[in-house]
C-alpha cells in the first residue's frame, strides 16, 4: 500500500479496522435488492397500480378490497394447513430418522451414511423437479407408482391430484419428502451434542429406553426443535416451485397457497397493487418469524 493510501485509510470512517469498507458490498446489495423492493411493495400496496398501464394513483381501496375478499381467507386456510401439517410430519419423521442414524453411528452399523445421503438427496433437488417426480408418482391413473403400490396390497386407485382434499394431502406429502432431510440434519446434530453421561445416569437410576427418550432426549432437543419449527415454517411458506408442476394450485384453488396466490394476482390478473398487499402480508409474517428466531438464539446465548 502506498503511503498516501495508508494515510487515507487511517481516518475514522473508512479505516481497515472500521466496518464501512468491509460491509459496503453487503450494504449495497441489501439496499438495492431488499430495502428498495420492500419499500416499493409497501408503496404499490397503497396504489391501484396494474401491470397493464403505466399510471396509477394512491388509494387505500386495494387494501380494503384485498382484505375483504373471501378468497384470501380460503388461501390463508390452505396455507395454514400446509404449514402446520408440514411442521408436524417433518419434525416427527426427521426425529425418527435422526434417532436411527444416530444409533447406527454409535453402534457403527453399516448403511448409515447411505441413508443420510439418500434423505438429503431429496432436499438438494430443484423444487420443480420434486414437483415433477411426485406428479409422476401420484399419477391419478392405475399406472402411477402410488396407485400401483395400493393395488399391490389390494386397495383401489386414489385420484391423488384431482380432488381438493387429496391434492392438498399430496402437496403436503411432497413437501415432507423434500423437507425432512433438513429436520433430520438439525436433530442429528442436536442428538450428538447430548452427553452420554445423562443416559448412563438414567440407566443407573433404573430408567427404561422410553423414559430416557421422553425425559432426556426430548427436553435436550427442545431448543433445536423450536429453531426447526421456525425454519420449516419459512421454507414451507416460500414454497412455490414444487406446487406449480404438481397441482398448479388446483384443482380449483385447493392448493393455492399465499405465495402462489401473490404470483397469480400479479402475473395472471395483472394487479400489481393487489399482489403487493399480499406481499406485505408475507413480509409481516417473515418479520414475526425473524423476531421469534432471534429470541430463541438469544436465549441460547449464541447471538
Amino acid at each position, binding site marked *: 500500500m502506498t503511503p498516501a493510501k495508508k494515510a487515507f485509510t487511517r481516518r475514522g470512517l473508512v479505516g481497515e479496522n472500521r466496518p464501512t469498507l468491509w460491509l459496503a458490498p453487503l450494504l449495497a446489495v441489501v439496499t438495492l435488492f431488499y430495502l428498495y*423492493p420492500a419499500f416499493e411493495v409497501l408503496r404499490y400496496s397503497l396504489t391501484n397500480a396494474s401491470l397493464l398501464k403505466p399510471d396509477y394513483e394512491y388509494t387505500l381501496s386495494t387494501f380494503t378490497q384485498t382484505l375483504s375478499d373471501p378468497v384470501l381467507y380460503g388461501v390463508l386456510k390452505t396455507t395454514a394447513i400446509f404449514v402446520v401439517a408440514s411442521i408436524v410430519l417433518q419434525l416427527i419423521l426427521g426425529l425418527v430418522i435422526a434417532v436411527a442414524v444416530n444409533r447406527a453411528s454409535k453402534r457403527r452399523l453399516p448403511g448409515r451414511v447411505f441413508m443420510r445421503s439418500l434423505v438429503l438427496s431429496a432436499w438438494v433437488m430443484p423444487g420443480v423437479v420434486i414437483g415433477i417426480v411426485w406428479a409422476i408418482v401420484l399419477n391419478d391413473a392405475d399406472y402411477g407408482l402410488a396407485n400401483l403400490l395400493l393395488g399391490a396390497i389390494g386397495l383401489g386407485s386414489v385420484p391423488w391430484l384431482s380432488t381438493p382434499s387429496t391434492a392438498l394431502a399430496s402437496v403436503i406429502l411432497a413437501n415432507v419428502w423434500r423437507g425432512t432431510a433438513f429436520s433430520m440434519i438439525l436433530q442429528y446434530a442436536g442428538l450428538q451434542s447430548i452427553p452420554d453421561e445423562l443416559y448412563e445416569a438414567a440407566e443407573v437410576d433404573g430408567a427404561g429406553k422410553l423414559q430416557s427418550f421422553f425425559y432426556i432426549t426430548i427436553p435436550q432437543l427442545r431448543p433445536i426443535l423450536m429453531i426447526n419449527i421456525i425454519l420449516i415454517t419459512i421454507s414451507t411458506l416460500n414454497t412455490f416451485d414444487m406446487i406449480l408442476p404438481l397441482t398448479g394450485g388446483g384443482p380449483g384453488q385447493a392448493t393455492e397457497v399465499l405465495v402462489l396466490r401473490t404470483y397469480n394476482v400479479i402475473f395472471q390478473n395483472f394487479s400489481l397493487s393487489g399482489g403487493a398487499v399480499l406481499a406485505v402480508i408475507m413480509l409481516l409474517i417473515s418479520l414475526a418469524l425473524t423476531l421469534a428466531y432471534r429470541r430463541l438464539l438469544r436465549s441460547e446465548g449464541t447471538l
Partner: protein
Amino acid sequence: MKSRKTQRLMGDALTYLVFLFALIFFGGPLLWLLSLSIRGPQEIFITSLRLIPEDPTFENYTEVLYTAQFSVFLLNSLKLALAGSIGAMLVSAPAAYAFSRLTFRGSGGLLVGVLALQMVSPLVVVIPLYRYFDRLNLLDSYFSTSMVYIAILVPLATWMLKGFFDGIPPALDDAAMVDGCTRFGAFRRVTLPLILPGLTSVFVLTAILAWGEFVVPYVLLSDPSMFPISIGILNFQGNYAANSTNVLAAGGVLAMLPAIATFVILQRFIVRALTSGAIKG
C-alpha cells in the same frame, strides 16, 4: 427381565426397520423416475411394479438433451449458479469477516437484519424489480438476473461464513498484523486460507441452491434460450407430458443429477456448514 444383548438386538432391528421405511419412501420415487427414464413409449402405461423395462433404452436422454434443448437449459443453469455463488462469496466474505472480527456499534442488530433477509420470499424481492428492470431494459438479461441470485444467496452465505471465521482464533490475524500485514492482508493471506473448507461448503451449498432457483428467472426471463433447467423442465411438462412421461423422467434425472452428485461427493463439508449456520449462527 430382558438381557442387555436381546435389548441391543431389538434396537438394531428397530433401527433397520426405520431405514427400510426411509429407503422406500425416499428412494422409491427416485428409482421410479430412473425406471421410467429408460422405458420406451410402449412401456409407460404398464400396470406392474417392474423396475427394469423389457427393452431398456437411452433414447429419452438424447431426445430431451437435443430435441427439447435441455443441453442449453443445463448450461444456462450452470452459468447462473456459478455467477450467483461466486458473487455471493465476494460480497459475503468481507462482511462476515467484519462481523466476526471488528467491534462496532450496531453489529448485532445488523446481523439480525441479515438473518431477517433470509426469511424474505424471493417473490417479494422480484415483484418491484420486475417493473424496475422493465423500465431500465434489464429484463431478459443475465447480468440483472445474476445480481438478484447474488442478493438472494448473500444472507445465508454471510451467516455461515461468520460461523467459520469465528472458529479461527483472532490471535492469528493479530500476529500477521504485528508482522507487518495490513488487516486486509491478514484477511486475504491468513484467515481466508484457513477457512478454505468453510468457503468450499458455502460455495457448494449456494451453487446447489442457485441451481434449483425458480422464482427469480421465472419472473425476470422470458426468452426460452435463456431459461435455466428449472423453467425449461416446467415448460416441457406443460407442453408434452401425457404421452411422453418417459422423456420427462429423463429430463428430471438430468436436472437433479448435478445437484445430487455434487452434494454426495462433498456432503461431509456441507452437513457441517448447514448445522453451524442454523444453530450456532
